[in-house]
């Protein structure tokens, strides 16, 4: 039986830990451990919540009204609600710097995926061509994870881009707007497939359409963004709770893992962590260390360990992230209708565009607007706010947004390093690939044409290119490969430089397809646990 110290309770960490526990190993998890409040009135829809709460404005906008998106604040159409602010809180003194990148970090139980939108998109054989293992190995991981978390989906036109796997639940109930778009697609399918190489179908989401364990099936409360009050929408903290019930699992929360001490032959001997409030230090003896703190923090732990060991300036190259562009649209057939209060709030359908090669696939998540704050949206209209609010009421149910994702490759210069002036703090550098502008323009033209064919109007000038870092799909700094050099890992995620250190999060990805990678992070962590232990 191995004793493995796992750093981080995000999507990778909890599934890696659970697989180890199931195989009879002992796990100590070191984690930031911040937790959010319990959602109030778990049976209330979003609209009912406004009626039942004593002070709905404070709940939905925050104690200090920080949830109000003011003009030119740089915030997006969908901000993180105050209720989820704990996910992004940093320990004192944690002050990463960045150039060309807006990194997000989490020290919460469940990590950044506590704020995800539950998209589960398995990679296909072309997309894992650079990964040093067969697709079947990952497929088993997908199936294990799907059984654990519950993934809904369907065998439709998007299955050509996303392999089917065991354990898929029936899809969630469609809202009227999504249904209208799919009906229209059925009529225009041949044209869209042939002319634009564009396909529509149901998205795969980790939101239950039937009960699973103590998690309830989606009750269509329209509260996904504020945190599903019945646990239908999966977050990694659910798996953490499962691990906590295991006798071989020790959880050390409230800690920020800083570095590990190195012994003979580069073996990690001791993990050093300090409390989030900075008042105490704790040390954990290491047989095996698994870093699952997320690409940036795991890279930071490695770098800080090397710096303390006298390695000088090292930067880990090859950082990747998905560029995302938000394309809003208005469906003319939905004008004047009421928005659905009792509906699943996040995306139910998706759009896939074939690229020149299978790896150039572009994925779009189509979110039709149901329950949502309208003030961030209507303020961007070119009218007085009274008029804009009226327009918002007339168009609310007709609005939607496509979140278009682009793939990324490892490139030198895109790196995670340590600040020379401020030891211990990360410096993230990123520059987009040359020609990115043309690629975005070309693809967005195709997306707009597809939307028009589906009966929608795409307001000119309102597409929003999200900053790099916003997608939170970070990867690539310590890539897996069959025969690599320094600062790579073997196919089991074991560092070639640090023989008892495993990288089980996005660090190890050698390529980043245009899909939310969270499902693959979980499946890969399961694969590593099953193959290396």
């Amino acid at each position, binding site marked *: 039986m191995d004793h493995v110290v796992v750093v981080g309770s995000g999507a990778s960490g909890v599934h890696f830990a659970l697989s180890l526990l199931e195989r009879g190993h002992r796990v100590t998890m070191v984690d930031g451990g911040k937790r959010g409040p319990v959602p109030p009135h778990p049976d209330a829809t979003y609209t009912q919540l406004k009626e039942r709460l004593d002070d709905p404005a404070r709940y939905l906008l925050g104690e200090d009204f920080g949830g109000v998106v003011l003009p030119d604040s740089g915030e997006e159409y969908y901000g993180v609600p105050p209720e989820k602010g704990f996910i992004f809180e940093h320990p004192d003194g944690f002050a990463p710097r960045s150039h060309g990148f807006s990194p997000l970090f989490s020290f919460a139980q469940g990590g950044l995926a506590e704020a995800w939108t539950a998209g589960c998109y398995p990679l296909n054989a072309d997309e894992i061509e650079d990964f040093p293992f067969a697709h079947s190995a990952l497929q088993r991981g997908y199936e294990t994870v799907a059984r654990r978390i519950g993934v809904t989906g369907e065998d439709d036109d998007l299955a050509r881009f996303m392999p089917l796997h065991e354990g898929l639940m029936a899809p969630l109930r469609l809202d009227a707007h999504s249904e209208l778009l799919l009906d229209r697609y059925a009529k225009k399918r041949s044209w869209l497939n042939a002319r634009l190489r564009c396909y529509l179908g149901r998205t795969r989401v980790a939101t239950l359409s039937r009960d699973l364990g103590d998690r309830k099936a989606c009750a269509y409360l329209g509260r996904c963004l504020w945190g599903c009050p019945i646990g239908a929408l999966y977050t990694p903290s659910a798996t953490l709770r499962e691990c906590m019930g295991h006798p071989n699992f020790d959880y050390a929360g409230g800690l920020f893992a800083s570095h590990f001490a190195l012994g003979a032959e580069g073996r990690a001997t001791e993990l050093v962590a300090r409390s989030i409030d900075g008042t105490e230090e704790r040390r954990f003896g290491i047989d095996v260390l698994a870093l699952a703190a997320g690409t940036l923090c795991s890279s930071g732990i490695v770098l800080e360990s090397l710096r303390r060991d006298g390695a000088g300036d090292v930067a880990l190259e090859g950082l990747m992230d998905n560029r995302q562009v938000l394309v809003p649209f208005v469906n003319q057939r939905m004008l004047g209708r009421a928005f659905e209060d009792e509906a699943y709030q996040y995306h139910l359908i998706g759009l896939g565009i074939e690229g020149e090669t299978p790896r150039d696939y572009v994925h779009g998540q189509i979110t039709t607007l149901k329950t949502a704050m309208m003030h961030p949206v209507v303020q961007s209209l070119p009218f007085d706010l009274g*008029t804009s609010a009226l327009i918002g009421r007339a168009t609310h149910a007709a609005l939607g947004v496509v979140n278009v994702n682009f793939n990324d490759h490892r490139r030198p210069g895109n790196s995670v390093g340590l600040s020379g002036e401020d030891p211990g703090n990360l410096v993230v550098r990123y520059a987009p690939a040359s020609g990115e502008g043309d690629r975005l323009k070309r693809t967005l033209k195709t997306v707009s044409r597809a939307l028009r064919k589906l009966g929608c109007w795409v307001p000119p000038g309102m597409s929003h290119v999200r900053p790099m870092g916003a997608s939170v799909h970070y990867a690539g700094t310590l890539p897996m490969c069959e025969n690599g050099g320094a600062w790579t890992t073997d196919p089991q995620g074991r560092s070639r430089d640090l023989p008892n250190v495993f990288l089980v999060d996005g660090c190890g990805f050698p390529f980043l397809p245009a899909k939310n990678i969270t499902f693959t992070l979980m499946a890969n962590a399961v694969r590593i646990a099953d193959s290396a232990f």
Partner: protein
Amino acid sequence: MSSQGNQLRREAHAFARLLAGAAPAAAVLEAYLAAHRARPAAFRGTSFQRVLVSSASRSAFRARVADAYARMFDPAGPLRCKLVLMLAILETTPPAHRRLDAPIGGSPAAALLRLVLYGLRSVGSLILGVILFTPRRWFTREAD
């Protein structure tokens, strides 16, 4: 009651009438005042920006005219910020949220026609705003 408190109450009444067609409920008024205490920096402005806010606080009609001007010529100024704040509070607080959540019904064609009419009214407000506020902006700039 302080003069600043009175001014904020006047604003709240005019803005709530513009955005939701009714006077603000006590909870809305309380939240509007609390937000000004919590985020004061967002609502400070130059003397001309204060003129815009002051004019807008007199009635819903004046608020529309001043905001149509502000949307074009001072899009991140205090008037705009105050109106967006009020909209955020109204859309989260009963009973105003019921009105803001209700659709402006009818067939898609009727809805489209309404949108055009709303747009035209806003353009009219903008023209009036330019006539009223452009000279005052010049004058205030000179005075500053």
